[in-house]
């Protein structure tokens, strides 16, 4: 049993925003007590009384699936005074690199990095080696995920080999544990195949996550196209490469009534298209990543490969549009697109270095700046990073799959005890060499971030940092 007391609890799923206590028992949320400023208190009892209620000892090992022997005769009490207590963050776009690219990251190290960043659930993209385009690779990932420090939910490929030609066995893969499908890393260039994917997936109620990039326009581009790319002599990717595919996918979603989720939105034009589509009632959701509202293309001025990412960093206007999109709900989710690479791979010619930023450990701090700037309230931020991902992936209601036993993205009674406690006063300077992730590739080295996880509770374990 764990008692988190005196924290500022924020649970947008229940409209909770106030000081109170959270009680965890057997790996589930038992109850939430609000003492002040709360809209809806979960329990009538006062805090003091619940503390004195006799409780079962809480298991410190195991999967939190039920009771068990405990090493602690008394409940663990955590003083969260002055800190935010929120449902664990859910990152629906992560590259864990296992199987096949373990030199960049493994499920173990990736989930450790996630925990460090305050994430209790991550969804891993299928561009591994072999690609997760069949049930046996999914099964491998699920098995490996048992060692993971947080919950790992696999995203299956849309097409076999991500070649964009034949659909995968979505039903079988769902049964094995996939919670969505994406060819991320690549778009599905063939419109007919994308149409079929959106149609077919309806049978299983799972979203199609689209990496929107017209490969014929982006060709061998390595940064955003514009004055800077011309000055640096680097081939550019026009914003239209993303927008054209966003538009196409929206129309196909409209046509098929399938469930479309647009990955890593990076341009003003895309935001406008999505806003418009939502107005028309299209079933589309969208995500962006912290680097798209924190950095412009100037970050690659000195050919710094740590700022090389796909889609590329864009302009100030795009940053403003993305912030606006987050504010008015056009963009539902902030995900990391965590893309770790080995140091040697980034120490190369700019053209040859693989794109990607190792983002799990900086996401929360960078996103908290949006709260500081007044773009989002803290409650809205938690929606973007926990509630909405849970909603889109159907994690608010428990699945029949063996992976998920309780709701996530919420602190409602019976939900999985995935909790993040955030210290908003502490300032941390980003030091990539100290990252838990194997990937040290970040353009945010030296940045001072406020709002870092003080403690992350996941899979019946408590992780804390002083």
């Amino acid at each position, binding site marked *: 049993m764990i008692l988190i007391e005196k924290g500022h609890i924020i649970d947008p799923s229940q409209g909770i925003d106030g000081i109170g206590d959270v009680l965890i028992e057997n790996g589930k949320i038992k109850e939430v007590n609000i003492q002040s400023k709360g809209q809806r208190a979960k329990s009538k009892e006062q805090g003091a009384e619940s503390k004195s209620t006799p409780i079962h000892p809480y298991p410190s090992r195991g999967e939190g699936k039920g009771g068990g022997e405990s090493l602690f005769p008394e409940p663990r009490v955590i003083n969260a005074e002055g800190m935010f207590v929120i449902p664990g963050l859910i990152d629906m776009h992560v590259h864990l690199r296992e199987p096949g690219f373990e030199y960049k990251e493994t499920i173990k190290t990736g989930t450790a990095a996630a925990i460090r960043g305050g994430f209790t659930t991550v969804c891993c993209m299928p561009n591994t080696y072999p690609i997760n385009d069949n049930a046996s690779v999914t099964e491998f990932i699920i098995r490996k995920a048992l060692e993971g420090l947080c919950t790992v939910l696999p995203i299956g490929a849309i097409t076999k080999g991500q070649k964009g030609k034949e659909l995968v066995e979505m039903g079988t893969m769902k049964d094995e544990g996939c919670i969505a499908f994406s060819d991320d890393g690549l778009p599905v260039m063939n419109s007919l195949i994308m149409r079929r994917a959106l149609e077919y997936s309806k049978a299983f109620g799972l979203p199609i996550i689209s990496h929107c990039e017209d490969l014929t326009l982006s060709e061998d581009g390595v940064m955003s196209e*514009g*004055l800077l790319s*011309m*000055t*640096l*002599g*680097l*081939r550019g990717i026009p914003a239209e490469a993303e927008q054209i595919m966003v538009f196409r996918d929206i129309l196909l979603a409209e046509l098929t009534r399938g469930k479309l989720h647009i990955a890593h939105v990076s341009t003003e034009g895309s935001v406008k298209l999505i806003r418009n589509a939502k107005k028309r009632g299209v079933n589309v959701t969208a995500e962006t990543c912290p680097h798209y509202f924190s950095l412009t293309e100037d970050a690659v001025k*000195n*050919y710094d490969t740590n700022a090389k990412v796909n889609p590329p960093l864009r302009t100030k206007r795009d940053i403003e549009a993305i912030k606006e999109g987050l504010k008015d709900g056009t963009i539902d989710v902030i995900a990391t697109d965590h893309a770790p690479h080995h140091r*040697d791979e980034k*120490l*190369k*010619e*700019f*053209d*040859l270095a693989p794109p990607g930023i190792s983002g799990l450990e900086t996401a929360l701090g960078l996103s908290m700046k949006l709260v500081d700037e007044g773009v989002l309230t803290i409650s809205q931020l938690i929606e973007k990073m926990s509630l909405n991902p849970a909603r889109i992936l159907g994690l608010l209601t428990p699945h029949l799959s063996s992976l998920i036993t309780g709701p996530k993205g919420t602190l409602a009674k019976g939900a999985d005890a995935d909790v993040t406690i955030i210290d908003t006063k502490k300032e941390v300077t980003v030091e990539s060499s100290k990252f838990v992730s194997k990937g040290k590739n970040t353009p945010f080295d030296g940045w001072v971030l406020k709002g870092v996880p003080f403690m992350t509770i996941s899979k019946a374990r408590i992780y804390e940092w002083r």
Partner: protein
Amino acid sequence: MLNKDLLGIKELSVEDINLILDTAAGFKDVLGRDIKKVPALRGKTAVNLFFEPSTRTRTSFELAAKRLSTDVINFSVPTSSVVKGESLIDTALTVQALGADFIIIRHSSAGVPHLLAKKLRASVINAGDGTNEHPTQALLDAFTIREKKGRIEGLDIALVGDIIHSRVAKSNIYGLTKLGANVRLIGPPTLIPREMEDFGVGVFHSMEEGLKNVDVVMMLRIQMERQGKGFFPSTEEYSKNWGLTQERLLLAKDDVIVMHPGPMNRGIEISSEIADGPRSVILEQVTNGLAVRMAVMYLLAGVKR
């Protein structure tokens, strides 16, 4: 010269450029003597690290180094280091371990000289990185113009051809605008980036318009591969519209000079008569290139580490 490396014209101030050109004048004198050598950089080692094939630039640097009494090593990597298996950084560190004081690098990827300059103690000289810059070419072009015309400021200079893919064009645009010339670009719209207008250069798509009264015409090489990628439909069409002919040259000033970085596609971007004619300074560019490269090495060697 502020820095131990020459990465691009972008990084140079007007004073830096003038210092290089003045020093080059001194070296051009040396090249006119019987003994064309000076002991200034005796005992130093220069390494030509060319990842792209090039005979003329490499030979020019090699000779420049030798004229300064420097030892020269030539590393010609046939294609990108990836094929060889050795990483770029490893190759560069190996070269440094051999005692290189100068690394003259040509590579198909922009930013490579910048990467090496950060990692190596040696002076890195950019001999062409992708479509970014080719600073010594622009310096020798500026030297040639200055020598022939007495100045650069206020001159009308036209660059003709494949601007978008030409590092020679980019470096020249940065250099000549810094030195106060009025630069014009002439070519088909597919070969001139829109963003160029932000540089304060004139953009023309017609030779007849663009060449009016210019003091200098600089022709750029048309690369045949571009034809296949939709940049222009055929070399015949290109030549017809943007080739430099005698009639077109008459539109320029009477004392116009014609330049070309080489190698030339005779009959395509430039007619043979002009290439061999009295207005052409193409061969002098080559001689001046030697003097300029000597000046660059001499000045970089004097920079305190």
